[in-house]
């Protein structure tokens, strides 16, 4: 099953159990229904489903207005870069609305555009930026277990947040992992436990971390594997404890943001842990944002394994 089909099934299940919710966005109930993401949601929605005009700024404000009047909503968006048009509402309106502690829920559900080839105006793998701009709760997901938990816990929870996953992942087979730990807010998940190395993945980089984990296991290196889903700074105590034990960190972050959450995490690590070795895998330059090119990180896994064990 493709990841997009799996997310669609989760959305259907959750929305079926919620009455009087407004689902809206461009093409959510027409054409390809955002490449299948929102297909069939209208038929299981007891509330209102609206194919909207192309008015992103206003549509973000509409969600806050619904919230003020105690009606929950989800605004689906084909590409996260469209959300740039709604920044006024994300910052200025939310700063007022959050003071009212609303009982309704408002979720914006954009797809992070991380194929890279859309070019300079339509390639925005920068979820961290949206969350940091007004302290907005944001959660990304990459696999079966985190998607199920995040959608179940956050899609219609009172308050406002952004949920997103990567465009590349959506078209791939669903990544089926078992988690051994998640904190109550789904801020991060632990998938593997090992004493030699701690691998921590940010944004949509869990598939890289999993590949590395498997290759290290073949080399008899036991590693712990975490993925951080929250795009706001949280308490990382369980991850820090694991790093204190292994003393070796591999941090992977595939965002193009210049305002990386993983940098704050790294500061926490350096403050709390004594490290024997660390390797940071992220973009050294973000100039790729300015022209069409692949978004994937180029990782020399063998070199990483050699370096972390040397």
């Amino acid at each position: 099953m493709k990841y997009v089909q799996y997310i669609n099934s989760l959305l259907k299940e959750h929305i079926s159990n919620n009455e009087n919710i407004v689902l809206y966005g461009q093409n959510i109930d027409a054409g390809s229904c955002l490449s299948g993401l929102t297909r069939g949601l209208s038929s299981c929605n007891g509330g209102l489903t609206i194919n909207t005009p192309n008015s992103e700024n206003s549509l973000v404000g509409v969600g806050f207005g619904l919230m003020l009047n105690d009606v929950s909503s989800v605004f689906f968006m084909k590409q996260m870069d469209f959300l740039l048009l709604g920044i006024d509402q994300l910052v200025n309106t939310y700063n007022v609305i959050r003071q009212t502690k609303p009982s309704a829920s408002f979720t914006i559900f954009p797809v992070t555009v991380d194929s890279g080839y859309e070019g300079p105006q339509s390639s925005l793998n920068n979820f961290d930026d949206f969350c940091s701009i007004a302290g907005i709760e944001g959660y990304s997901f990459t696999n079966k277990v985190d998607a199920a938990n995040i959608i179940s816990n956050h899609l219609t929870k009172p308050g406002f947040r952004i949920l997103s996953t990567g465009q590349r992942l959506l078209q791939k087979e669903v990544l089926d992992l078992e988690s051994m730990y998640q904190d109550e807010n789904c801020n991060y998940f632990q998938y593997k436990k090992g004493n030699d190395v701690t691998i921590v993945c940010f944004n949509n980089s869990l598939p890289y971390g999993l590949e590395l984990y498997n290759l290290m296991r073949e080399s008899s290196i036991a590693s712990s594997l975490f993925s951080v889903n929250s795009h706001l700074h949280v308490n990382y105590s369980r991850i820090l404890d694991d790093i204190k034990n292994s003393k070796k960190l591999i941090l992977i972050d595939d965002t193009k943001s210049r305002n990386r959450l993983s940098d704050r995490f790294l500061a926490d690590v350096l403050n709390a842990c004594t490290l024997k070795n660390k390797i940071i895998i992220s973009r050294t330059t973000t100039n790729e944002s300015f022209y069409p090119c692949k978004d994937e990180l180029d990782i020399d896994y063998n070199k990483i394994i050699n370096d972390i064990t040397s």
Partner: protein
Amino acid sequence: MEKNKKNIIRKIIWLRLAQVLVNQRYKNGDFLVPIHLAMGHESIAVAVDAAMHEQDSLFLTHRNIHYNLAKMGTLKEELDEYYLRGSGLANGRLGSMNLSNPDKNIYYSSSILGNNLPVGCGYALANKMKNKNGVVFITTGDGAIEEGSFYESLLFLKSNNLPSVVLVENNEWSLATRIKERRANIDFSQLAGALDIEYLLLQGNDPFEYQEKINLVRSKALDNNSPILIEVKLTTLGYWFMESEGYPDGKFINYHGGPAPEVDEKEYPQLVSSNEDPLFLLNKYLSVDELTDISNEMSVQLKEDIS
């Protein structure tokens, strides 16, 4: 004169007196928050207040003092909010430009041009979801309508059949720039017509005419499940003429925000002798002595309110 009409007149005079009092304290340097007074906007604010029903709601801009005061009917809580006191209308958390009052159906005010329109749209959509029979009133200005959210919001309200009134306070100015100095003219009737939205022009500051017309508009919005666009032409008073070398007769300085330096407390707080001042227009209905008596009575009431 009917009691209701006299109450409208009393409220207009009270609203002016309250703003003059705020202005006096503003001139004394009392406030840290920026305040945009709305002297000259009293008739429309009082008319909207009178036309709104219990289930209606109001979404305002940074210039919201007149609507907030008209809805509240007292000054103390709003004044305390400007002082950022815990006893303020919003516990000192919103200040002036974002001041709302849910207890009086003012659910949101925004300091950002055009920002309140989409929020009002969402509120109206929620009314529809809940089968709530109210009209959403959203105020904006001739500067804010230049933002894309104005068009987007009209389109959203119309596309979703939402009973609403979008009220453009057209004072001709955006900060220190007149319309003709910054953009092409916008024909509201044609713009509204293009979206199949009814348009109404209000001008002249007659509160009774305004109230009657807004009552009709409100009913139409409800009956037709549609937005209606109102343009109200008015003058934001508090302007002055600054003499300088290049301007021996004085250069016109528009009042936008902050204290109005040449507005002072007086027995009858009329600022100019023309219908651009709602208080001048009241001479049409009552004598100078009657108006002055009301003003004196309202002054005492205000002082008791804030003491």
